[in-house]
């Protein structure tokens, strides 16, 4: 783990200047006050391309403090490029401590997963959002979608689900599955798998969403009702997996398919690497762990 305290890098704490952080905090406060409402904000150019989490990084930079412990995940994993880069970015610009452990983190920035371990009061989860407007693909005009949100005209959202059932016999939307927040605003939960939607409901953690290119911030305060949209005769269902995790034998978690060789060998393993490693340390063993121990064994790791 990194030791706290800023290094002499010449960056302001958290990269952004204080005025910008104030501006973003104002947007966050408004977003928390109106759950699910997309608040416009003056998104800054960040030293990374759009689509790499510029929105999430700005939100994290605006809420992070010297005492915070940061965890960054990309598709559930702590050690993919995006997660490692963003974690290093904050180590360099703020000197905060980082962790891969969900339990130890005070701020978790995520790209498209919610950790399997239930979040707790006091934690903040920051989502990176590519397209914040759930109505966008059916109604391209921003002026019109804003009016539809204002007047709560959400029939169109169900047209999308209707089309799914008409074409695929079932609601085929598996990620970015639209939700209704506190009985009012329809919200895009960012492209998380719909498997994670129930975790958003009544979560004790503060959930913040940042879209850098689209310049929008929205939020779910702790203990907010989040309901996935559905039809009476086609109720919302989460993805189910037939096998447990090949490494830690967990069930009821979101699994990634991992190709093992070019002979058609494959396994399903937890997408949440921290959850999987914790379970292995606790002695849970999946069917494939014996063979794969050398490559993917359960040694916990920090940065660098």
């Amino acid at each position, binding site marked *: 783990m990194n030791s706290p305290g800023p290094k002499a890098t010449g960056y302001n704490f958290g990269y952004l200047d204080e005025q910008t952080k104030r501006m973003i905090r104002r947007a966050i406060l408004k977003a928390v006050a109106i759950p699910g409402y997309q608040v416009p904000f003056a998104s800054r150019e960040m030293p990374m391309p759009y689509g790499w989490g510029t929105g999430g990084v700005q939100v994290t930079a605006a809420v992070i403090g010297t005492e915070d412990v940061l965890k960054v995940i990309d598709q559930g994993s702590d050690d993919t490029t995006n997660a490692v880069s963003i974690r290093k970015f904050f180590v360099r610009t703020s000197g905060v401590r980082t962790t891969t452990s969900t339990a130890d983190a005070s701020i978790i920035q995520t790209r498209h997963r919610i950790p399997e371990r239930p979040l707790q009061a006091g934690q903040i989860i920051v989502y990176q959002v590519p397209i914040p407007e759930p109505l966008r693909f*059916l109604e391209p005009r921003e002026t019109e979608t804003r009016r539809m949100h204002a007047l709560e005209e*959400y029939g*169109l959202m169900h047209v999308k689900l*209707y089309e799914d059932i008409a074409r695929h016999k079932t609601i085929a939307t598996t990620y970015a599955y639209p939700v209704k927040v506190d009985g009012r605003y329809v919200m895009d939960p960012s492209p998380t798998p719909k498997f994670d939607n129930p975790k958003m409901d009544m979560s004790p953690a503060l959930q913040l969403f940042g879209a850098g290119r689209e310049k929008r911030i929205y939020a779910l305060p702790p203990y907010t009702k989040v309901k996935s949209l559905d039809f009476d005769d086609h109720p919302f269902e989460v993805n189910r997996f037939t096998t447990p995790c090949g490494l830690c034998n967990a069930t009821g978690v979101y699994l990634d398919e991992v190709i093992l060789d070019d002979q058609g060998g494959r396994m399903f393993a937890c997408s949440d690497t921290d959850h999987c490693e914790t379970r292995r340390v606790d002695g849970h063993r999946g069917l494939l762990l014996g063979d794969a121990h050398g490559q993917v064994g359960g040694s916990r790791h920090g940065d660098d």
Partner: protein
Amino acid sequence: MAMTDDAPLLVANGLTKRYGHRIGCENVDLTLYAGEVLAIVGESGSGKSTLLQMLSLQMMQTRGDISYRMRDGQMRDLTLLNEAERRLLMRTDWGYVSQDATLGLRMSVSAGGNVGERLMGLGWRHYGNIRNEALDWLDRVEIDRNRIDDAPRAFSGGMRQRLLIAKNLVTKPRLVFMDEPTGGLDVSVQARIIDFLRGLVADLDLAVIIVTHDLAVARLLSTRIMVMRDGHVIETGLTDQVLDDPHAPYTQLLVSSVLQA
């Protein structure tokens, strides 16, 4: 009940639209009763589309007022409705059928989704019921049931127009605005659409305000007619009466200009 049945559905007084110094239309008074079909005819530029846009609340008038008898029987001044009330009125109790069906339809959404949109907007949340209602309407507008999952992009012009009509009528509106609904269709398709519009209007007891430059369409569909020229109403009356015995010189010219096949 006789009282409310006798009360007009829509009343407009002194409707005026100015585009700067130019007149769109001026001082139009109009009363429409439930189940009545009113045709507004005139050459292009006569102000008939401007009038329709104002009546259907898609354009703000410069002067004059419009009131409408809501479903609860109350006459309301439409300029005083808030935006939510106005939009709810427009997508439940009203329909709007334009000449260009692509403006009113979602071209990449299936026929069933198009017809179902208004129902879902009103809170229908049962897929099976929405679909049955859509199938029922496809039957009524003579679109083959097995086209329900096709997008209107794959439909002919006449089918698109009929789908647009179904989409508008699914909430059982009491008033439908039509702007040249058969313009741009060939004569035989036009004839069939007019034929089935006549049936729908009678079955559903619809009030219709239809704008057309085609006197034959006006004669076949409407009971009353308004002739417009240069933004003014120059003659009004029962359709057969006006077309058989036009009084205003301009109406006489219009009637005599119809090509005889």
